[in-house]
């Protein structure tokens, strides 16, 4: 009697295992085929393990050593890091008071107001970039207004096609999104901590620094990482508003796979960018907790 029972249990768990496999295999297979495998291919391409064109060199680390040995691309990378840092810090600084206001100083309407702030982030990215092109151009809204009102005699040229434009527009793009994780940490904070600090005689500033800000650091760190990671590899914004002076690392990669036509060097840059992103994620992994931050 025991044996058949055991075998049905075994069959049951086998069937369940197969069912799980049937569920997980289609999406996982898609990601393996079109996400993980291509990354492996870029890695192979960067060392010549895969060559497609005549100027690719078979099995060599030359492209890597040329890149790491003080190339223009490495300089461009550090410039992109500086720009991404500036954008992330600015976005957090601008978003923090907004998130603080929504979480701690409003009553019923806070989710409506939060949605109001986030909505621009959900509308077309391209169109928001386009809007800034219209605003900042040498014949744009700001300059024509300055000329028309007589405040300036000549248009301000550095408004568009400059690192300034890239930083301004990227900050603009990310502020609404950054509000979200900061808001979540402030909103879920235990209010009685604030009351306790007040009862114990702490001033508002002291309460803010010692209690509120500390409680919100996971949200701030997550927000920082969520801006820094995509910004370091940014490509469209510099293309549209950056001009040659505002070019970033991502543009160099795109150029090497386009007009520059050196896929091997381009792959080196791509792999390097991925490694950097991986390291940043490693550093911020604990505060990022993707699923928690994004699901309310």
């Amino acid at each position, binding site marked *: 009697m025991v044996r058949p029972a055991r075998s049905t249990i075994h069959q049951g768990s086998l069937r369940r295992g197969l069912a799980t496999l049937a569920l997980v295999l289609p*999406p996982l297979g*898609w990601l393996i085929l079109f996400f993980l495998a291509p990354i492996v291919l870029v890695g192979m391409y960067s060392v010549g393990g895969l060559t497609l064109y005549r100027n690719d060199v078979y099995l060599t680390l030359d492209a890597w050593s040329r890149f790491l040995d003080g190339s223009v691309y490495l300089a461009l990378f550090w410039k992109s890091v500086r720009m991404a840092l500036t954008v992330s810090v600015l976005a957090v600084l601008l978003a923090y008071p907004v998130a603080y206001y929504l979480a701690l100083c409003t009553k019923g309407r806070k989710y409506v107001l939060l949605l109001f702030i986030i909505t621009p982030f959900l509308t077309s990215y391209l169109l928001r970039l386009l809007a800034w092109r219209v605003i900042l151009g040498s014949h744009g*809204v700001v300059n024509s*207004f300055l000329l028309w009102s007589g405040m300036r005699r000549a248009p301000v040229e550095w408004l568009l096609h400059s690192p300034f434009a890239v930083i301004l527009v990227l900050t603009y793009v990310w502020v609404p999104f950054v509000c979200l994780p900061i808001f979540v940490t402030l909103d879920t904070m235990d209010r009685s901590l604030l009351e306790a600090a007040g009862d114990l005689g702490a001033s508002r500033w002291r309460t803010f620094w010692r209690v509120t800000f500390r409680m919100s650091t996971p949200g701030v760190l997550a927000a920082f990482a969520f801006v820094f990671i995509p910004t370091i590899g940014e490509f469209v914004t510099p293309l549209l508003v950056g001009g040659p002076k505002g070019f970033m690392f991502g543009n160099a990669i795109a150029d090497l796979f386009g007009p520059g036509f050196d896929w091997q060097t381009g*792959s080196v840059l791509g792999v390097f960018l991925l490694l950097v992103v991986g390291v940043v994620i490693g550093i911020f992994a604990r505060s990022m907790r993707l699923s928690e931050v994004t699901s309310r």
Partner: protein
Amino acid sequence: MSDIAISRPGLWGLRALFAATAIFLYAPILILVLFSFNRGTTAVFPIQGLTTDWYRQLFTNHDLIESLRTSALVAVLSSVTAVLLGVLMSLSLVRRRFLGKSVVTGVALAPLVMPYVVLGISLLILFNAAGIPLSIFTVTIAHVVVTLPFTVLILVPRLSRVDRSLEEAAQDLGAPPARTFLAVTLPLILPAVVSSFLIAFVVSFDEYVVASFLVGDRATYPIYLFSQLRFPNRLPQVLAVATVMLVVSFVIVLLAEVSQRFGEQRLLGR
């Protein structure tokens, strides 16, 4: 609201900051809309009178309409695929126990932090190495990778709040797993399914970076829009179509949000 959080003058300061941020966020969008009605062909002050000509011209711009149709096709194909795969992925993450689940979760969400430039070049290398010519299908494949994590992020929280005893009851009554899913689980998560479809659709429709590497000779809408920016005299039309798309994407996102709220109420049995 607790007094220790903010002083009275501080509250006014924060309100001012909030208002300033709101203006900073919305002013560029409103300026874009305003200049789409400008009679002049350049976006300069002062406005030279209002017109709807640019909007009327959109209807006769065949390249534009063609690009919109291409993008709609890519967005429908990729978001339907992404939602199907996303449902399967979410079911396995929420309802199943298996070895390496945390790794699978990581892989499913990883495209969110993948630089799109690198995703673009890596797929370009893949398709080149495999000898697959670039077309709207290569863009579609890439957009499924891009949008799949969004669907998982929307579906997983919803699915994990569906009362499991309902599914067990159906199975106890003899319904096979597929039937249980279709008759019990799916209706309960349907709002999240709709919402994830809409979000995936919007993301795909607006996606430029990956598409710029993988598009064949049929331009998607963002690619077309980009190509038009080189010609200053096309700006008014670009602004007009931009305004239309802005309103459309706004409505779709709003629908997605409403759908989520609706699902919330249904889960709570109201």
